[in-house]
């Protein structure tokens, strides 16, 4: 369109907005050849095939033009002209240099300052009051929302889009007017009153201060996410005003926009007089007081995850030893030396402990004595943990194979060749073994070692799989949490994490939890793949979260073990170690066990 001149007068320069029915252009009015007078040309393409539909559209368009022509207010754009060409109609309005509030909200990192939003809100009250006092009939804007509020180059608000759908047509089903999310309950019933605009203004302020888009939340749910719970810097005075504007019953809201303006000015006075006095982030129960029940020091880093059996804790270390410790007091029982570091989580079966080591071997030692029973050689370091099923230990190796080792003979029954190193732990369900490898290939292999199906992620799958009867979950270095159908590998959903992940998910109820290198612990709904909450730690989260009772436990490379309420993601406490935590905690009998790269294994009260 650029370069086109409409009605021999408006020379189109560029598209400045795209709506459902056409675009908005910036154009130069050529009737003023000596000065550059810019206008906004709002185009509406009438592409409806049905003639009745077409006619309705034109009527609505003319209604908007006629309405605007009667208005005169600094916060309402003036209309200069309107015309139709073929199946297109055009409104010519003042060009407003600036940005709409929705764009401002999304382009701002963090929250907008309260003063700024307050200033806009006061001006919006002014223009609403003007519209509501219009004679002979009040004008209800009916579509107050951030994207309909422009902030011009002076920082003042301008209401735009006195659009088409502003009149009520009562139908048998679904009179839907206004923008869902911002509209009050009565507007859905077809009632339009000044009070509805006040509610929508409250919703607009709420959105601006919380960054939570109400269109993505259930209607009328503002009370469930109070301003100050999301944005602690908002004053309680402003929260009170917004809450009143958002009252469910119209009678409980401000009786006019002018009243609301007075209340907002009151807030400005109070908070302004005291300067920028802001509440600090509420300190949450700090775990400064948390003391470990016991700690045990290995000779090198502990990067793996422990296993517990009959009161004994088994954990590997990069000092090459597997340790057996008394779970109650941390007393040393025995250690078994491998020839390489141990990150593999020990598995217990029939009195023996199975684990891999960077010395390329799968080691089997007696749980009681720590004496070797047998070992099995692969051709690469082992970072995977063994999974015991069907008389076999399944384990991956950096040699690029999934090994199925017979528990009785200690000999391999079969090897399945993956495309690259297998560092994830095999997951066994419904007679299939699931495994990911470092190229991002993912395999379902049956008990004979034959491939049933294959999936491919864009980057390595180092994370192990967890699964329910109908879904497998794992993450990839491509920054995605995957949910696949266990029968055929079709992707049910994908959830984007902020960064790569090697963390193994954990599931409970309808939630799946996982960490990522962006430092967040995520909770995602397993049914609709929506984020329920996320919690920020100070560094990468590589280990797997675990759930115990109503808490989630997870370590971070920032050195802390976090305990969160798993339903809300709220911090209960954290415990700092002197090194990174890369393994997963283990919770048993109200005690959390976790290893750290500070060489220690800790036991804490859950």
């Amino acid at each position, binding site marked *: 369109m650029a370069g086109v001149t409409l009605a021999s007068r408006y020379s189109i320069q560029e598209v400045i907005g795209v*709506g*459902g*029915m056409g675009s908005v252009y910036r154009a130069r009015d050529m009737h003023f050849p000596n000065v550059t007078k810019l206008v906004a040309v709002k185009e509406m393409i009438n*592409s*409806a*095939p*049905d003639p*009745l*539909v077409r006619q*309705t*559209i034109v009527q*609505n368009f003319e209604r908007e033009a006629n309405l605007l022509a009667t208005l005169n207010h600094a916060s309402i754009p003036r209309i200069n002209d309107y015309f139709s060409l073929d199946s297109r109609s055009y409104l010519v309005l003042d060009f407003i240099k600036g940005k709409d509030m929705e764009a401002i909200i999304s382009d701002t990192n963090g929250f907008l300052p309260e003063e700024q939003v307050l200033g806009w809100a006061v001006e919006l009250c002014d223009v609403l009051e003007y519209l509501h006092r219009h004679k002979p009939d009040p004008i209800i804007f009916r579509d107050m929302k951030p994207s309909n509020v422009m902030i011009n180059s002076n920082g003042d608000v301008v209401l735009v889009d006195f659009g*088409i*759908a502003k009149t009520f*047509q*009562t*139908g*048998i*089903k*679904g*009179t*839907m007017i206004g*923008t*869902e999310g911002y*509209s009050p*309950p009565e507007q*859905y*019933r*077809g009632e339009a009153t000044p009070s509805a605009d006040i509610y929508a203004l409250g919703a607009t302020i709420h959105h601006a201060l919380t960054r939570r*888009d109400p*269109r*993505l939340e*259930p*209607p*009328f749910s503002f009370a469930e996410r109070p301003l100050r719970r999301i944005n602690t810097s908002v004053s309680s005075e402003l929260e009170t005003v917004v809450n009143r504007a958002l009252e*469910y019953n119209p009678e409980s809201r401000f009786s006019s926009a002018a009243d609301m303006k007075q209340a907002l000015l009151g807030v400005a006075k109070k908070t302004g007089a005291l300067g920028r006095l802001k509440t600090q982030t509420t300190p949450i129960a700090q775990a400064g007081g948390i003391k470990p029940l016991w700690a045990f020091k290995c000779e090198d880093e502990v990067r793996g995850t422990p296993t517990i059996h009959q009161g004994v804790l088994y954990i590997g270390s990069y000092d090459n030893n597997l340790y057996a410790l008394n779970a109650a007091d941390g007393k040393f029982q025995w250690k078994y030396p491998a020839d390489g570091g141990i990150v593999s989580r020990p598995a217990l079966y029939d009195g023996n402990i199975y684990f891999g080591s960077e010395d390329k071997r799968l080691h089997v030692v007696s749980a009681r004595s720590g004496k070797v029973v047998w070992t099995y050689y692969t051709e690469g370091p082992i970072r995977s943990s063994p999974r015991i099923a069907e008389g076999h230990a399944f384990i991956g190796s950096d040699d690029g194979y999934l090994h199925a080792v017979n528990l009785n003979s200690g000999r391999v029954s079969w090897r399945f060749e993956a495309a690259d190193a297998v560092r994830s732990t095999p997951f066994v369900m419904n007679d299939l073994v699931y495994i990911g490898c470092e190229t991002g290939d993912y395999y379902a292999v049956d008990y004979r070692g034959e491939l049933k199906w*294959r*999936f*491919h992620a864009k980057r390595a799958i180092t994370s192990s799989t967890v699964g329910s*009867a*109908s*879904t497998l979950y794992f993450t990839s270095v491509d920054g995605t949490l995957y*949910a696949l*159908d266990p*029968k*055929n*590998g*079709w*992707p*049910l*959903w*994908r959830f984007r994490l902020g960064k790569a992940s090697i963390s193994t998910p954990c599931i409970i109820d309808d939630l799946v939890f996982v960490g990522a290198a962006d430092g967040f612990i995520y909770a995602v*709904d397993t*049914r*609709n*793949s929506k984020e329920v909450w996320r919690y920020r730690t100070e560094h990468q989260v590589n280990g797997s979260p675990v759930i115990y009772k109503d808490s989630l436990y997870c370590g971070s490379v920032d050195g802390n073990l976090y305990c969160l309420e798993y339903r809300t993601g709220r911090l209960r406490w954290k415990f700092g170690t002197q090194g990174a935590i890369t393994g997963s905690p283990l919770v048993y009998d109200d005690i959390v066990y976790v290893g750290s790269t500070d060489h220690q294994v800790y036991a804490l009260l859950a």
Partner: protein
Amino acid sequence: MLKNFFDGLFGKKTPPEKTQDVTQTAPLTEEQIQTIVNNQNPHFDLQQLLASCGQSVGKQRELNEDSLLALTATMAGNSGNLPFGLYIVADGMGGHQFGEVASNAAIRAVAGHILKKFHPYLFQVKTDTMDESFQEIMLEAVRDAQRIIQREAPGSGTTLTAALVIGQQVTVAHVGDSRAYFVFPDGRIEPITRDHSLVKRLEELGHITPEEAVNYPHRNVLYRALGQGELLDPDIFTIAFPQPGYLMICSDGLWGVVAEQDIVRSVVEAPSLQRACQNLVSAANAAGGPDNISVVLAQLIG
């Protein structure tokens, strides 16, 4: 696999007598279906998806603003069996604004988008991994439909409840107040969608009681519909197909008129899915037929 199949059909010791039954057939014969249904065993290897549907303008409307789509594909063979089904009900917002245009555009757009996406994997033996998930494909399909409705019939709107069945996974996309249910042979009925209606929301918030909801004057007002609003946020989720059980999708011309327990009875007691759908439509009409009626029933057996 084949052995299990016949064990399931005839019991372990009985040698197969009727030779025509020895052949593995798809679709299954009526007799085979009955046998499988009777010995419902969730681990049975051979799965088959069955579906039927019914529609009526009702007794008080002149125009049918509902649209319905039911598509079932059976692909069976030695290398496995993958049931594929797509079931959609859309109820155009009536009385004004071309609801029938919207509901029709919705089912065509959604089905068209989904089939285009799956075509290479289902029919061209593509071995690559699908690079979009079921939920992403559903979301795109709904967004596509939204654009088309806003272009072809601006101002109009429609509900949309679509279920994509692949294997035993049901992925649902839902906007508005048509409903998807799971119906179980033991008499339970469970709505799996949540109405985007004013009355349901008020009920959820505790502003009105379920009893008040039944007679609430604005029962038909939706807060979310396809074609309305620029930022559409459909409910999209994936769950396992009930086995044993049925998936039912219907417009409010059925669920708003026939009591849930009568719906269950019609479904469970009918000799076939086709008959069940007929019975449901008749029941809604017998209750006055105040609105258009659409229903789809699907069952995954084996």
